[in-house]
Each structure stands twice: as C-alpha cells, then as structure tokens.
C-alpha cells in the first residue's frame, strides 16, 4: 500500500518535470522556427507540427500532474463546509469521478491508437502512435493519482504513515 502511494507520487513528479521540459523545448523549437526563417532563410519544416503535437503531450501528462498538485480549475461550492467527514466523502466522490474519466480515456485512447496509430504525420512523417499514445499514458498516470488520492481520503491512516 505504502509503495503504491510512493509510486503514484513519484510518477506524478516525473510527469510534472516532463511537462516543464516539454514547455521549455517548445519555446526552443519556436525560436528555432523564427531564427531559421529570418536568419538562415531556410525555415525548418517540422517545427510547427512538433509544437502542435507537444500540445497534446503537455495536455494529457500535465492533467495528471495538475491533479496531483491541485492545479485544476474547479467550481467547488463545498469548500466552506467544515465537516471533516463530509470533506473526506466529497474527496472520495470527486476522485471516483476522475477515475471514471481516466478509465474512459484509457480505454478509448487505446482503441484510437490501435485504429490510427500506424498513420504517419504529414510533415515529419512520424507514426501517429507516438502522439496518440499521450492519451493512454496520461490517462494511466491520472488513474494512479486519482486512486492514490481516493485511498488517502478513505484511509487517512495511510497518509500519516507515509508522512513518517
């Protein structure tokens, strides 16, 4: 149990650092695109496509990280409820819904990869599975995070043990 929590947390951290680097690399690609166009007069043909695909990886990996660190936007009307049991139940409920969403994306994302993954991208000619698999990996990480948070809310004892 403990090792699962540790694993979920470290995977979320890996996802977090990965999206940070994705953003940094995208900035670099962007600048490279401008630089090669104006300074070298020979624009790179694949950067725009790469930036679009980076968007997809950023979204799905970043969603898992945002879930772990509580950075998603929500409209929580129940924050003011001071009952601790209620808040725990609410956390279990929300993470349960997140798990449903994660399973849905994992399942349909896998199907989507199997159906379209062998196509190749127009500019760089890479197999689309490298892009579409972001849904599967992101959803798997999101599931880990949501299960971890659900268990923490259901059995706070484990949370305390972990903190030691």
């Amino acid at each position, binding site marked *: 149990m403990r090792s699962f929590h540790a694993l979920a947390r470290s995977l979320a951290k890996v996802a977090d650092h990965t999206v940070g680097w994705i953003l940094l690399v995208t900035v670099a690609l962007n600048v490279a695109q401008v630089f090669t166009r104006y300074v070298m007069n020979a624009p790179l043909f694949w950067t725009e496509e790469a930036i679009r695909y980076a968007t997809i990886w950023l*979204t799905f990996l970043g969603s898992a990280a945002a879930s772990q660190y509580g950075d998603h936007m929500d409209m929580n009307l129940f924050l003011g409820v001071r009952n601790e049991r209620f808040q725990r139940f609410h956390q279990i409920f929300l993470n349960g819904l997140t798990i449903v969403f994660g399973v849905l994306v994992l399942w349909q994302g896998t199907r989507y990869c199997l159906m379209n993954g062998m196509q190749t991208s127009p500019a760089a000619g890479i197999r689309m599975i490298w892009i579409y698999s972001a849904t599967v990996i992101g959803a798997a990480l999101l599931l880990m995070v949501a299960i971890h948070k659900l268990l923490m809310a259901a059995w706070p004892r484990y949370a305390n043990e972990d903190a030691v």
Partner: protein
Amino acid sequence: MITVVAVALVLLLASGLPIGFAFGLAGAIALWWENEALLNVVSKMMGGLDSFVLMAAPFYIVAGEIMNRGGISERLIRLSQILIGRIRGGTAYAAIVSAVLFSGISGTAVADIAALGQIFINGMPKEGYKKTFAAALVTAASVIGPIIPPSVIMVLYAAVADISVLSLFLAGIVPGILLGLSIALVVLWKGRNGDLPVSQITVPRAEVPRLAIDGLLVMSLPAFIVIGTLSGAFTPTEAGGVAVVYAAFLGMVVFRNLDFAGLMHAMRGAARLTAGLFLLIAAVEIVNYVLIIGGIAEGTAALVGIFKDHPTIFLLVCVFALLVIGLALDAGPALLLLAPFLLPMTRSMGIDDIHFSMVMIVSVTLGLISPPVGICLFVACKIGNITLRQLWSELALFFYAEIGVIMLLVFFPVLSTGLPRLIRG
C-alpha cells in the same frame, strides 16, 4: 440529448469536479445515453487540441510568471509612481497605471491580482488608505489583465471560435484603457471630499534614469509582441515564444533575479495550469459535438428569428446571461462552449465578430470579480485578510462603473472594431 448533456454538465460542475473532467464526462454520458460511439471522446479531444494558436497561451503565462519572479512587478510599480507624481490619491492612480502596464505582460486577471495585490493591498494602508479600498481598487483593476493583450482567454477563444487572435488583441486595447479610466473616475469620486492621502513615495533623482530604462526594457515586451505580430514578422504563437526568451533574458541576465531552477519552476507551474485549460478546450469539443448532433441548430435558428431585427437587444441578453452565470461560477468555459454557435447567429444579425467577441470577453472577465464567487475576489480577500462583505462594500461602485464600460462597448461597436480596422484595414 441536449437536455442530458446540460443536466450532466451542471451537476458535475456543481459537484466541484475539475472543469475539464466535468465537460469530458458530461459529453461521454450524453454519447452513451444516445448509443453514439464513445470513441468520439478521444477523437474530438484530439481535434480540439490540433491547433498551433493554442500554444501561445502557455507562452504568455510563462512569460508573465518569469517577469514577476524576475522582480519586474516592483520596477513597473516604481515607474507608475514616477509617472503619476505626488498628487492627492497618487498611489491609487499609480495602482491603476501599474495594472494597465502589467496587463501588457500578463495574460490573466489572477496573475495581475497576485502580483499587484501583494504590493498595493498591504502597502497602501501604510500611506493612510483604507485596506478595503486598496483591495477593491486592485481587484477592479485586475480585470484589465486579460483585456489588454496578451490575453490567455483571447487565445483560447480564438482557437475555439476560429477568429483572428491578432484582431482580438488589437480590439482589447481601447476597452482595457476604458476600464482603467472608469476605475480612475470612481477613485476621483470616492476622493471628492479630499480625504485621499497624498503619495508619500519619494524617488531619489539619481534613480530616475535607471528606473526609466528598466521600465522601457519591460514595456518593450508587449510592444514587441504587438508590433512583431502586426507587421507579419511573427505569428502570435511565435511572438509568445520569443517573449518567453526575452523575459528569461531580462530576469536571468539583466536584472539577475532569476536562476535556472526558478525558470524551470515557472515552466512547470505554467505547464500544469495550461494542461487544465487545454483539457477544457479538448473536452469542450466533445460537448460541442453532442450539441451539434443533438440539433442545437434548430434552437439557434429560432433565436435568430426572434432577435434578427434587434441585434443590440440580443447583445444585451448575452451580456446579462454571462454576468448572471459569472455570479456563481467562472463564465469562461460557458463562453468557450457557446461561442462557435453564437458567432454564426450574430453574423446573420449583422453584428461584427470582433464587436461581439469583445463584449463577451469583457463580460466573462467581470464574472471573476462579481460576488459571491469569483477567483479574483478570493485572492484579494486572502492577501488583505478581509472578508468578502468588507471587500464588496468598496468594490461595488468600481464594479458598476465597469458594467458601464460594457454598455459603452455594446452601444458603440467602434470602440472594439476601430483599432483593428484602422491597423489591419
């Protein structure tokens, strides 16, 4: 089918589920209810994300964040104080000028209030202002952030509604300045009895040239974005990428307040925030698809029939609806969902796309400061350690003045469309 998705969406959002997940699940429930293929969940999300414009959003977020970490807010504020000088209520006006300047490097209202709130809400009472007044002032001014370019909501809106980001950016400049003026008018009115303190800040003469250079360095960023994209040298996304590099250069090399660890920290924070926004954009596509196959076209056609001779009334109805939604929640997602349906309607009524979009974006943004629920309200209360009721007692007049600006925008399309037309033809 539309009923199913609407009910599911409202229930899921109200439960407190992250907005992106709520849109995704609501769309999936409606698809499942009608025996439509669930594969659409993933294929529509992919379609929604396949856009080069979108990547401009994290670039603007991270550029603003780097500028803030790199000690740039303080420099902007010093600059505003020099500009305003030692007049009665000087610091209050300086706060407004700071908000206008700061909105040139930040793309969101929350970034504005987080950066300016720390300094003004806790700093102005030391000069003799009421803390509630300071908090209300900064809260009211924070809505300028997403109206003056760059703007994250405009990038997202342009991506879903398929209109030019650049035109939207240009269109925001005049309304943003009008919002600033409306706030200044309220300050003038509140200080009519001469009870606002005179600014106590003294800037040594020797410091002025240094501050002016710093200010110019900072303000060259928005100028660079606007001029670079206008001249066709860059796309808005490319300008955002270059802006990040410029901001990092200023923070790391010129002002030396930022190291690589700080840079990566800003990158990760911006990436997580962006992931949430993009997931929402992706999931909005699912619900959009559900609305289309559910036959929303009949409904919109009926609405056009009712309002076709009264475009202004239709605009007012839309503003009212967004403001009402904005009371209880953030109306941004609602706008992103409905814009693709509203725009064809307003076009057939003869309303200019940019005019309509600007009115909608300002209305949504005001939702961020309208009680009882608004993210900027919460941030201001937290920084100032005051209650929402105390804040609202001072904020109300500012808020109504800003509603007045929306009315001006509704009745005078040229305020939104003038600048884009003048510059882009």
